[in-house]
């Protein structure tokens, strides 16, 4: 029997609802309907009075969560799509993120953000917004790439006293399966070596971990051993693991699915250049999505985001220095 990434998210919510009376779920179409992606299927029936459908009011959903957290609750808010969190941007970055610093009272809310592209989902149901939120002080931004991380990091997110933006990748929902949800017990804030290697390091997160591993497998045929670092959380960012990997390989490719201007990959390159310039044998490289809105057509979409081909190409360039 196997567990999918979306199963893991559902199971994690079931577990926290069962074990922590402070938890409730609030989001659009999440009660009887079970959510647009079925991440809350059956939970409204299993936990009466704790799973709520709400109006299409992303701003007010987060405001409500902050108020509930002030009152000691641990709300989990489902944004139907990460893209729609732009409507809640103010409440997330100005209300939730500043609350602890300003008042000394943390607001433990978890916002689940179905994120990233899938074929045909187009400009407004595909975005990767982690870099935007990571830019704001006061938020924890996590980006699980594995079934086990989806499960354990969601449970851990609910336990954290700070607001957590939980970026779950829609492309992984049903495609990614594991034999069980058991994991390696890494805490939020620690990266993982997803694939060991010695010639170059790819630092990435979320669905791109799998594309990077595919690219690394291809380059193996040519004798290249590529190390893939899965950041797991982009904020905090585990620079130690990244630097240790770059120290082994001397070469860095920062890979992400978000738009190319700034963002997580830029931050990784900047930090490694600052702290580990002496470790680098080649100019650090970045590979991101293209600088256009995410296109609708599957052919365009597939070429908009990094692919194993474009990752291999970037790595060959990196290895050629």
């Amino acid at each position, binding site marked *: 029997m196997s567990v999918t990434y979306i199963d893991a998210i559902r199971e994690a919510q079931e577990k926290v609802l069962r074990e922590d009376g402070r938890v409730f779920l609030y989001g659009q179409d999440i009660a009887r309907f079970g959510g647009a992606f079925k991440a809350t299927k059956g939970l409204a029936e299993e936990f009466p009075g704790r799973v709520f459908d709400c109006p299409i009011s992303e701003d007010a959903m987060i405001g*409500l969560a902050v*108020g509930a957290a002030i009152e000691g609750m641990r709300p989990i808010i489902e944004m139907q799509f990460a893209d729609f969190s732009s409507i809640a941007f103010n409440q997330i970055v100005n209300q939730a993120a500043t609350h602890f610093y300003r008042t000394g009272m943390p607001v433990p809310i978890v916002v689940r953000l179905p994120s990233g592209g899938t074929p045909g989902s187009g400009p407004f149901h595909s975005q990767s917004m982690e870099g935007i939120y990571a830019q704001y002080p006061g938020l924890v931004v996590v980006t699980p790439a594995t079934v086990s991380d989806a499960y354990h990091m969601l449970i851990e997110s609910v336990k954290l006293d700070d607001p957590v933006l939980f970026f779950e990748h829609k492309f992984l929902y049903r495609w990614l399966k594991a034999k069980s949800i058991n994991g390696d017990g890494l805490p939020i804030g620690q990266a993982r070596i997803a694939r060991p290697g010695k010639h170059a390091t790819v630092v990435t997160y979320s669905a791109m971990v799998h594309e990077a591993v595919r690219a690394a497998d291809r380059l193996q045929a040519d004798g290249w051993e590529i190390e893939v670092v899965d950041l797991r959380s982009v904020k905090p960012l585990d*620079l130690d693991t990244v630097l240790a990997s770059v120290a082994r390989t001397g070469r860095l490719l920062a890979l992400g699915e978000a738009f190319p201007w700034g963002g997580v990959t830029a931050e990784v390159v900047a930090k490694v250049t600052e702290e580990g310039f002496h470790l680098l044998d080649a100019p650090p490289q970045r590979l991101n999505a293209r600088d256009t809105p995410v296109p609708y057509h599957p052919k365009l979409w597939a070429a908009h985001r990094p692919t194993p081909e474009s990752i291999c190409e970037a790595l060959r360039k990196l290895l050629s220095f």
Partner: protein
Amino acid sequence: MPVDGDFLREAFRSMLRARILENKLSSLYKAGKIVGGVYLGRGQEAISAALGASLIQGKDCYAPLIRDQAGRTAFGEAMIDCTRTYLGSVEGPMRGRDGNIHRGRPEMGMPAMISHLGAQVSVIAGMLFAKRLKGTLDGSVGATSVGDGATSTGAFHEGLNLAAVEKLPLVIVVANNQFAYSTPNHRQFACGDLVERASGYGVVGYSVDGTDLLACAGVVGEAVKRAREGGGPQMVVAHLLRLAGHGEHDDGSYVPSSARTGHYGRDCIEVAMRQLVEAGYATVDEIFSWQEESAEEVQKAVAQAQQEPSPDPYREDWTALSTKFPASTT
């Protein structure tokens, strides 16, 4: 709702304390002793105090906005919280990390506002929602104030609609002071009276003369009572005029003299004073003695805050997260 004398005395004293405090804040600002801005509730004290005095600290929650010094005072905020925050004392609730009216004590049911208007509506809704889930709602209410400008925001709409859908005991006071910063009502909304919106949200609406303490106390008292009794969200629109600029940096010269000399240009404190004296709830001498007490209280609160240390950037821990992640992470 009939209003009792003790309530009016309490509300009026809060108005007086707020006015005298704010006059001092204005002087301090003009003397360069307060950095940032000073935002006064002059002219809005009656509606603000009526709301604050109708709430029970420890049971109710209240998100004041920028012109609610009187409401904060009536709700029970210590005056020293105000002077410490304005003067940047590290002893204040915001410890110099935020200033002026952006202060609160969420643990006492008074969250700290952010500048983005309408944003506190859903926060108060969330506090009430949580109380209901915890089973501690028990006749408590949540209240917040906004101005006419905030009613144009998406946050106001989302928050009030959500509160109505959830049937929460939320009392929202809209102080229509005719100008959002410099923008007059006719460039802000196209309905006749903002109270017309209440029925669209499925909430109970009230319209009141915001310069009349007696009327405000009656209407707000009724709204709070109905919310307490399970009547769902209540929306009170108070008509008044801001008797100051948007902040003390602003002379409000855009307010036409006809507005200043019109009915809503009257000073609610003078109106309330007459009401109290005429009804026999207070004597003129008593009111003078309250005035003196308030002036003394203000002097003390200012002097204390001025003596206290300001935040030290070298001792500040410069962290926005309560979770301690390993130092190697960034």
